[in-house]
């Protein structure tokens, strides 16, 4: 019997030197309460480690949180690695703190959505659900 609605799997990652994890823990909790399986890989991971994890866990969404200003380096790297692994169906979503022009540029490069600091948790949940629905089954 086919599962009624497949559970959405999300990997939440903190990359590099950024040591702020309170926000991601709140997001993780919100996603869990919305019925999703949330994999959190802890602080200070590299883009390679994060993409490896995303591929092994076959997540629907890879959420990367950055408050350190390194987003214009890290996101393109992650997108490139996912592309190399043939894992473009994994939707990349960004979070944290970054200027609007960078948000636009990153979305042009392939980040599906960026939900900055102070985005209400239910908006995060509905955005993820919508993105996964739009992408369709895989």
């Amino acid at each position, binding site marked *: 019997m086919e599962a009624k609605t497949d559970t959405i*799997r999300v990997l939440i990652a903190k990359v590099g030197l950024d040591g702020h994890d309170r926000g991601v823990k709140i997001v993780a909790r919100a996603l*869990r*309460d919305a019925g999703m399986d949330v*994999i959190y*890989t802890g602080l200070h991971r590299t883009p390679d480690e994060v993409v490896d994890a995303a591929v*092994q*866990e*076959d997540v629907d969404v890879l959420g990367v949180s950055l408050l350190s200003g390194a987003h214009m380096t890290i996101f393109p790297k992650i997108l490139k690695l996912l592309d190399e692994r*043939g894992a473009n169906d994994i939707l990349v979503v960004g979070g944290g703190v970054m200027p609007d022009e960078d948000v636009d540029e990153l979305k042009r490069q392939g980040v599906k959505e960026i939900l900055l600091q102070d985005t209400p948790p239910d908006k995060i949940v509905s955005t993820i659900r919508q993105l996964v629905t739009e992408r369709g089954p*895989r």
Partner: protein
Amino acid sequence: MSARIPSLDLVDRVSAGETRAIARMLTRAESGSTEARAALDLIYQRTGRAHVVGITGVPGSGKSTLVAKLAAHLRRSERKVAIVAVDPSSPFSGGSILGDRIRMGELGGDPGVFVRSMATRGALGGLARGTLEAVDILDAAGYDVVIIETVGVGQDEVDIVRASHTTVVVSAPGLGDDIQAIKAGVLEIADIHAVSKGDKPEADKTISDLKGMLGLGVALAGRIVGRLTPVIKTCSPQDQGISELVAAIDEHRDYMKSSGLLEERRQAIRERRMLKAAEQILHEEFEQHREGRMAPLLAELGDGQVSPQSAARRLLAHISMETPQ
């Protein structure tokens, strides 16, 4: 990759050890996809090589850290290791936070290690739905050791025994007056006991208590045992006891092979899986067939006219009368 790849097309890629295909297949097994069944049956035919090790212990026992150390050690002998880390789903929302990977950081970047996190999704017994299919897939993919790591909170551990060739129970010292393993028959299910956080002062007492309890069990049973259950002290940050634990796991496998118990255990696993799958199917069919039949019974229950037990019997009678056999 836009169209959904048929599961049968993934099978050979799984056998070839391709990470993406393995991960894909794991997802389909976990979601209970009917489309994937033929592929999973094929994959099952390709299993039998891996040593399946179940590791369980209460939350806070240091299990995940120990598993990471174990995997790192196994890698030194060039064995490929897969870890299925199971955590409970929230009974309220059905979602989960799977954090075991946090402890596995040192294994990152090693192509010989595969880590997959799974949520129990309401399954009783500490194992997730699809955990055993996951073990099949990783076995067929060529991993030499497949570790199932699960949280044990009591009788739940029993399931992990019925799923693995070697079961390791991890206890942490100083978590209460009594050793967690003594409660609810968890003591006996272990093929190996590991005491974590060996640098704590209470560690030695925990070890001697465990050994005492195990010895008492043997004396009470009054039978000759072919093997004494080892109790191994470990301290993950100091890499203490890890090589002993690996040796004990390997020795257990050798013992099971030479005594013929391995085949017995395998057959028990097969039987258990068949029965679990049958229960699961029955449960799902019941959920389907009870739809739309509940309202009148619920009304009677509300009025106090009928007891839940009797209502249950009538519900079932209703279903079996109308369902074609």
